[in-house]
């Protein structure tokens, strides 16, 4: 059984992530903890301004209305878990501090699920500053659940020859051994080279986990849309260029575009 935390902003909630959780529940035992966070991190309010033109905050944080909304959302989560017969817990972490709470909660979890359609929408389009920061500080792998996505039917492992990409691939294999049977492809993104680095060692490990894996080289990652048409509903597995530099990685258009599209499930892990 694995412990999954679902993180929500206390005033925005829906049950859309449960499609994926329900599918997962059918193939293995899971324990789900809902973590409700403050709508704003007051310790870093100046670093993360609300973006004009977005939906903003529907209610004032700390008001009776927001407390009422939180109670309603908690009840909705509990009802859904009971309906699906999933063991669960609810953590009320509404205390004005978002990032420290996420760090702490993720330390004691195997996986963190984030619904990108809702997550701190007042702070801009995804990936917004809150999402980037949360992905950066998370101490367990993160799965981004897109609002418009259909359940993953294939696995796409992004490899760039680095320690961190291999780290993410290994973590995915350990956490989701049940998804081994899906069609899987390893993509090496390189503009110049035709050689995948450390190919023989890589293949030896890959075949031991994914006997039917395909290896492909992607010349230009900007054309990923057309590439994904041949690989429908992928679960994209990616690392970062070192923990400290994850923000750098997100600056690269590729991953940002994928998150921004809000169509693909993304598994992101870094040390």
């Amino acid at each position: 059984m694995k412990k999954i935390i679902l993180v929500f902003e206390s005033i925005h909630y829906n049950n859309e992530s449960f499609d994926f959780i329900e599918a997962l529940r059918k193939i293995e035992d899971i324990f789900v903890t809902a973590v409700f966070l403050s709508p704003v991190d007051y310790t870093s309010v100046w670093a993360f301004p609300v973006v004009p033109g977005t939906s903003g905050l529907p209610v004032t944080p700390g008001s009776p209305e927001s407390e009422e909304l939180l109670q309603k959302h908690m009840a909705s989560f509990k009802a859904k878990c009971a309906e699906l017969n999933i063991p669960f817990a609810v953590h009320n972490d509404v205390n004005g501090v978002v990032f420290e709470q996420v760090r702490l909660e993720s330390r004691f979890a195997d996986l963190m699920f984030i619904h990108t359609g809702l997550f701190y929408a007042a702070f801009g389009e995804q990936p917004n500053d809150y999402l980037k920061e949360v992905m950066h500080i998370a101490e367990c792998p993160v799965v981004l659940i897109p609002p418009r996505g259909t359940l993953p039917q294939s696995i796409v492992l992004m490899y760039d020859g680095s320690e961190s990409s291999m780290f993410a691939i290994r973590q995915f294999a350990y956490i989701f051994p049940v998804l081994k049977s899906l069609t899987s492809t390893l993509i090496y993104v390189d503009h110049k080279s035709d050689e995948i680095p450390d190919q023989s060692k890589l293949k030896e490990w890959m075949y031991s986990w994914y006997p039917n894996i395909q290896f492909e080289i992607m010349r230009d990652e900007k054309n990923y849309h057309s590439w994904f048409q041949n690989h429908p509903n992928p679960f994209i597995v990616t690392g970062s260029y070192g923990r400290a530099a994850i923000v750098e990685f997100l600056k690269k258009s590729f991953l940002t575009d994928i998150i921004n599209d809000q169509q693909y499930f993304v598994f992101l892990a870094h040390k």
Partner: protein
Amino acid sequence: MNKVLWLVNPLQVTEMEIDFPKYIQELTHCNLLCILLENNFYETLPMYTGDPMFPAVDFSVINSTLNEEAIQRSDNARHAFVEMCGKKGLQFSIHNDKGNPVTEVVKESRFADLILVKNSLSFNAAFEELSGNFVKKVLGKSECPVLVVPDDHQVFDEICFTYNGGYSSLYAMRQFTYLFPDLKDVPVTVLFVDEKNSEIPVIHEKELKEWLNAHYSNFSFKILRGDVETELLVEMMPKKNMIVTYGAFGRNNISRLFRRGSADKVLEMIDIPLFITHP
């Protein structure tokens, strides 16, 4: 867990050491890849310059008789090792790595799930005096977890998670759990190491229990106070057949579970399997 690297110096290996990799293989059904590491430093004869002012070693020549003997000896040892494993019914494949053993192992570790190594593995006593212990170097640089194996054969009848509330100790616990999913009914002790010796230690019990509950059926907590390093040694020295997890070894930028040198002491003084990894 699918791919385990087993580091062996064929000149040193004893029959009893083969039992532990065999036990790991039976437990996890992994592919065992044996890396035969050998000392590639040739025996040389020093030549002196003859200059009375600077009589230091200037250059040296390879002593071919000694080296031929060494090559012959290592070939024999390798054959004996393969035969010994065959007798014990161990399934494995062999990689022969030439070059610097530490560099080779680190390179292999990126594409492996676990490394098995005996604490006392060494290649050249004189060389190691200068360069530090091989196992400690591998621990600091490996990209996958390392299981340091005791000299005698032991099994996992008990699990001990050392825990200081920080990321690295939880990281080690999680990695161990993913690699050995079949141990969920083995009794677990969480050894909380209170580094600050605070009156009310911050254990994050609620969160930790949720995680433990998801993975293990039988667990308990124990809090160590006072001089943590000594207490830990006292706790572990009489133990056998227990696996201990440690987060962080030799990477300066992360919070360490123990102060400098403490893990070294543990490595030298206790004789149970140690699972060591760092984020």
